[in-house]
């Protein structure tokens, strides 16, 4: 008998430990659930941390209104199966109430607006900590973010003033108005997430698997044709077998050509891929080298 945990078990254990620490040390945590693969993993981790008890926090989705219908359907079904409470914070409502203005033009997205809706929801529900599914391997600014990070009154992240994080001793003390952001998947890579999904046999929304879809090419990426997207001159829709590596605002989430129809196929495609998830599928990060860092400072998750 060797007492060495396989790496997925070690990562899982570390995540459960963080979830329980945050549940114990904060008064009103909340778990962000989008219906995407990382947050699906987060739900499984929450089940492992707290069952047979109920989750000591509600779930929340910041809905851009540009969510893939397949993902929304999946989200509601999964929440019902779990018997937990879901709060939907709607960007559309923020826009309708005049608290944010939609970007215009063919490259408009609701990514920035999401921040406003998120901060409003935090205030309304008095959340003092949010669980997010972000990983450090996603993007360079994230590589330095703490597992338990903090946002000030304005939701801003200050990368220069982070608390030291030693061992697994998380300091959950905050001032009024501040809130914590806990990232149980910090040390997971995209491949770890996929391997975990396969191991746990987690159900995913169908858009993660190859399917025929009407798309158009822009900046070297494929985007879904939808009522929310405007085609530019010379952009022609065509049908292609694609799958998604992340699900977000469908106007800025790129699809990849793929024939992988099963989880095993997807895992082998990911293992062989030569492009990062964000580089391949997120238009918003391509804008500038420091795009992500800037958005995070403004309170983007």
């Amino acid at each position: 008998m060797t007492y060495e945990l396989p790496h997925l078990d070690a990562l899982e254990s570390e995540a459960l430990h963080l979830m329980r620490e945050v549940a114990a040390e904060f008064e009103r945590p909340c778990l962000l659930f989008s219906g995407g693969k990382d947050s699906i993993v987060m739900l499984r981790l929450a089940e492992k941390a707290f069952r047979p008890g109920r989750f000591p926090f509600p779930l929340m989705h910041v809905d851009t209104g540009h969510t893939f219908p397949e993902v929304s359907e999946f989200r509601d079904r999964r929440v019902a199966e779990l018997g937990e409470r879901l709060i939907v914070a709607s960007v559309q409502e923020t826009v309708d109430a005049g608290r944010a203005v939609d970007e215009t033009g063919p490259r408009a997205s609701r990514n920035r607006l999401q921040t406003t809706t998120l901060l409003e929801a935090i205030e309304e529900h008095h959340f003092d900590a949010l669980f997010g599914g972000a990983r450090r391997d996603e993007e360079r600014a994230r590589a330095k973010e703490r597992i338990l990070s903090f946002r000030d009154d304005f939701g801003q992240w200050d990368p220069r003033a982070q608390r030291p994080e030693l061992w697994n001793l998380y300091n959950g003390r905050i001032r009024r108005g501040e809130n914590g952001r806990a990232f149980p998947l910090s040390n997971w890579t995209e491949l770890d997430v996929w391997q975990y999904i396969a191991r746990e046999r987690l159900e995913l929304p169908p858009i993660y698997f190859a399917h025929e879809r009407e798309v158009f090419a822009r900046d070297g990426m494929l985007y879904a044709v939808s009522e929310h997207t405007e085609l530019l001159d010379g952009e022609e829709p065509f049908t292609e077998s694609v799958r998604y590596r992340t699900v977000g605002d469908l106007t800025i989430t790129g699809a990849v050509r793929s024939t992988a129809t099963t989880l095993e196929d997807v895992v082998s495609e990911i293992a062989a891929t030569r492009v990062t998830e964000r580089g391949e599928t997120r238009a918003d990060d391509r804008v500038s080298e420091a795009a992500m860092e800037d958005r995070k400072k403004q309170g983007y998750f």
Partner: protein
Amino acid sequence: MSTTSLVRIATAGSVDDGKSTLIGRLLYDSKEILADQLAHIADVSARRGLETVDLALLTDGLRAEREQGITIDVAYRYFATARRKFILADSPGHVQYTRNMVTGASTADVAIVLVDARAGPTEQSRRHTFIASLLGLRHVVFAVNKMDLVDWDEAAFERIVDNLTDFSARLNLPDVTFIPVSALHGDNVVERGSRCDWYGGPPLLWHLEHLHVASDRNMIDVRFPVQWVIRPQTDEYHDYRGYAGQVAGGVLKPGDEVLVLPSGAKSSIARIETYDGDIAEAFPPMSVVLHLTDDVDVSRGDLICRPHNHPEPVRELDAMVCWMAEAPLRAGARLAIKQTTRNARVVVDELLYRLDVNTLHRDLDADALGLNDIGRVKLRTSAPMIVDAYRRNRATGSFILIDETTNETVAGGMILDRETLPP
């Protein structure tokens, strides 16, 4: 699906020793760099007028740091081979950033200390080695870099080995290894070098893949800090009471007699539950739920251990601390402490000495610890603490100190015991 184990690495080196290049090389040669990342750094290298792609750019982090051209905070990188998955905490090497190295090393199994083959060991190499030993790392690898610039001179390498072997012998480091490398050209990083027939050892990555880390954790003394009590209080789970936590030491089995501290209540383990079913044994760092045979009172912050192997609750702590705040620490200070899942308050009764991390000299006259200083203190706690010596158990022997007015984490601490005093 293949199972691989997880190994955590902390890197350290003085500025320009080639740490960024080495990490870039590890990521690149282990095929961890993806096309878009490579295109990005190729682009930046070209804009800066470089002839070749600068692999060091891969580990470049936040904008502020890019502007200053230095890394100022711990950054985490990931790479994997068929055998292992690695988490690398990249700590910058500046003098003032002892706290970053301490942070990076706190969770690490192994430290890679960079040494420039031309300059030989510097004060900083020794400081980094000392910090690795202070933080309880069992394995240190000295990567003697830029061997190409000394024409792969074996004698130059051996001088560095002798020097650092002497130094390491004064520290508590069971496993020290030296590897001559050229990070720039890739010799002995992932692939064996072609210009060093005299070197019989493996390349760095091979060494990291085969390092024996499983036995580094304490598998003898049962320690289970309770994090969270699961009590569904539904009809179906009316009498359910599970104690959730992460095993901090030892191997737990159903039937084992246990002692709950600080109450002193005794019971035994009825079963060890996980979401995937009951299991026959639990060991570090597993997260599990324990059920006891008796209805004893157990809550968060309690420690479950064995009746004949347990720490005595104490109110005085003898510890080394690394101070991480601008305002200095002095005797008389009042702070909050977090150790395992326990929170309490402390008063700093005494500052015994400040340790010069470069010379290991003890300054007995010091009356304060400044930012990045390491020193020995006596603390008095507001509630009984249940601790082990850090040397025996990193999970139950470590703590953080928190300033209650700013909520900042101001120190990391390691419990000492009489048998294993530091230098």
